[in-house]
């Protein structure tokens, strides 16, 4: 999946622009930004995290392996991977979260990697509490 034709993409076109150089990035402290200098056009793949539905722009210079959820058989972001190591972690894909909220029995809040489901009625607290 990672690096395949199934990825999304960010396309930066600075073919008619001064672009953004490494110097621009260093001066501004924009860590993690990928330079696309003057006259260049670059396509950078993106993936979506199957747990929090956030899009991740894949840094082409990264060497560490990317996270993967064997239950979902999909890519997950580093933050959601870290969440899986927490003692009270409950595995729930984004799609499962959406299904729960769209029943109208829960509202969702909190960070995407550790969403907080709040029952809308007392009976749900007993069932899911």
């Amino acid at each position, binding site marked *: 999946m990672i690096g395949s*034709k*199934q*990825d*999304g*993409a*960010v*396309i*930066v*076109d*600075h073919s*008619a*622009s*001064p*672009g*953004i150089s490494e110097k*621009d990035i260093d*001066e*501004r*402290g*924009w860590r*993690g*930004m*990928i330079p*696309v200098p003057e006259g260049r056009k670059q396509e950078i793949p*993106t*993936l*979506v*995290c199957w747990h*929090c*539905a*956030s*899009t*991740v*722009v894949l840094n082409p210079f990264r060497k560490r392996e990317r996270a993967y959820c064997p239950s979902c058989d999909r890519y997950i*972001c580093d*933050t959601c991977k870290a*969440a899986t190591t927490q003692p009270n972690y409950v595995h729930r894909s*984004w799609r499962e*979260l*959406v299904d729960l*909220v*769209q029943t*109208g029995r829960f*509202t*969702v*809040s*909190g*960070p*995407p*990697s*550790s*969403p907080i489901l709040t029952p809308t009625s007392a009976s749900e607290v007993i069932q899911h509490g």
Partner: protein
Amino acid sequence: MAKRIFATMAATSGSGTADNATVGTSGFMAIKGGSSTQLIDIFEILVSGFATSSAPALGVWARMSTLETTPTTLATPGSDGPMHPSTAALAAAPVTFIAAATGPTRSNAASDGRINLGLNLFGGIIRWQAAPTQQFSQLGNTAQLGESGLSFFTGTTSGSYSAHVIYEPY
């Protein structure tokens, strides 16, 4: 239940704001769910720069950790409409806006995903396009899963830009 395009024309980026601070009263574009259960998928974001001199700009599409107050009703040159002419009116229309009495606050949570849309607004163009099933999604209408938007990070050189977002509410 149909794809829509939310666009802003000739907006000004400003010099950007830090995370966990309000993005200002204008110069951004944001989408909030129309109900507590509404799912919104975002499929494409395009930003094209129209600055008249070099203007490195760190645009980001990010979730909002504090919602705005009193979003200004979208008016021209901003727009938000269906891509198909036969699209029915939405029962719970998402709130799309480019100005507010107090702008939303861009999340600074390291646990929040964001799309890096950095470009030079002097002639630069950036487009993010999701592959099938790879869309950026938001859920509900409360922080911080229920609203996301385009804004600019500290260090941006102010410049003019136009942008569009293709999304679909469910």
